[in-house]
C-alpha cells in the first residue's frame, strides 16, 4: 500500500491561511490503513484546525468527507456537491489522490494534507517499512522475493557491499542488510545458485527517471 504521514497542523494552517471555508477530504483506502488520512485522522485534523484558527481570531468552517478512493473519478464525483460550497479543498489522500481531485475541480484550489512516503507494508502496529520503489522492471524472482533495488541503500544487484555489520546496513543500523536477507532467503528455498548469475546493469528506462509513466491495458479498454 501507499504509506503517508500527516503534515503538521502548523504547516497546514499556513497552507490554507487565506481560506475561510474548506473541505477536508479523506481517502478510505491506503492512507486509512496507514492511519494518516482516513475518516478519523481527517476528524482530528479538523478539530485541531478549527481550534487553531479560532485562537488566531480567524475562524474557519471545515466540512469533512471521506471517499472510498481518491484516485478514481468514480468516487471523486461524490465530492461535487460539497466542493461547490467551499473555497478550497485539502486532500488527505496520497499525491495521486490530490492530483486526481485537482483535475476534477479545476476552479478550486486543492492542497495536500499529507506527505506521501512510499510503497510499503505494515511491520507491526504503527510501523511501516518501504518495500517497493515501483521501478517498472521487477527483479524479485532473481532475489528470492527481496528487493535490493529498494532495500539495499546502495541498490547493489550483485552481492553485498561488505560494509554491513552483524547483518545490519552500514548506512542505517536500524535496517537489515538486504543482501543478508537475500542470501538467507535463497538458502532457505534452495536457490543459492541464483547468486552465481551476474546481473547486468538495470534498465532504468521503465522507472520514474524518464518522467511520469503510463500503463495501458488494451484488453480492458472499453473504447
Amino acid at each position, binding site marked *: 500500500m501507499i504509506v503517508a504521514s500527516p503534515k503538521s*497542523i*502548523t504547516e497546514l494552517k499556513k497552507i490554507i491561511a487565506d481560506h475561510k471555508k474548506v473541505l477536508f477530504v479523506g481517502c478510505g483506502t491506503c492512507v486509512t490503513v496507514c492511519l494518516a488520512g482516513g475518516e*478519523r485522522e481527517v476528524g482530528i485534523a479538523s*478539530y*485541531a484546525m478549527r*481550534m*487553531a484558527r479560532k*485562537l488566531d481570531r480567524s475562524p474557519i468552517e471545515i466540512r469533512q468527507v471521506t471517499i472510498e478512493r481518491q484516485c478514481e473519478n468514480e468516487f471523486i464525483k461524490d465530492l461535487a456537491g460539497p466542493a461547490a460550497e467551499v473555497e478550497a479543498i485539502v486532500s488527505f489522500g496520497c499525491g495521486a489522490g490530490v492530483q486526481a481531485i485537482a483535475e476534477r475541480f479545476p476552479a478550486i484550489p486543492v492542497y495536500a494534507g499529507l506527505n506521501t512516503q512510499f510503497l510499503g507494508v505494515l511491520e507491526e502496529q504503527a510501523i511501516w517499512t518501504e518495500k517497493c520503489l515501483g521501478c517498472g522492471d521487477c527483479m524479485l524472482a532473481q532475489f528470492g522475493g527481496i528487493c535490493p533495488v529498494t532495500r539495499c541503500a546502495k541498490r547493489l544487484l550483485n552481492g553485498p557491499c561488505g560494509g554491513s555489520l552483524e547483518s545490519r546496513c552500514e548506512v542505517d543500523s536500524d535496517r537489515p542488510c538486504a543482501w543478508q536477507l537475500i542470501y538467507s532467503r535463497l538458502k532457505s528455498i534452495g536457490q543459492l545458485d541464483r547468486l552465481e548469475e551476474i546481473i547486468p546493469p538495470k534498465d532504468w528506462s521503465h522507472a520514474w527517471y524518464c518522467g511520469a509513466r503510463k500503463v495501458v491495458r488494451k484488453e480492458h479498454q472499453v473504447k
Partner: protein
Amino acid sequence: MMQLEKEQTAWTPEIIAFCCNYCGFAAADLAGIQRMQYSAGLRIVHMPCTGKIEMEYILDAFERGVDGVLVVGCLEGGCHFMEGNLRARKRTERVCLILDEIGLGSERLKMVNVSDAMAPEFVQHVQEIVSTVTALGPSPLKPSENKESAGES
C-alpha cells in the same frame, strides 16, 4: 471594578473528567460516599474503559470551550481490558502535542491513574488540575456568551 474582581474570584473552571468504569468512576463514587469535597466545575463522563476514549472526544470537549480535561484510568498493569489505559496514555500524549502546537497549551489536559479505592488521590488530582487551569484562566475557545460568567469582560 470591585464587582469584576469578585466575578473573577468566583470563576470556577469547567473540567471534563473522562473516568474509566473500573477505577476513576468508582473512585469518584467512593469520594462522594465519603463526602469528600472537590470543585463543583467537574463534570464526569462515564467511560467503559479509558481505551474507549478517542482523541476526538477530548478535542471536541476543548472545541466546545471546556477549560480542562482530566483522563482517569486504572493503575498501569491493572486495566480490566489489559491495556486500555496504556492506549489512552498514548492518545492523551498525542492530543497534548496538538494542544501545544495550536497554542491552547497541553497543561489543560492531564491523564492520571488511580484504583477504585483511591478516592483521596482522585480528589487530589481533580484539585490539582483545577488549580492549574485556574492559574491559566478560562479557555480562549469558550463561546463568547459564556465569557462574562467565566470572568472575562
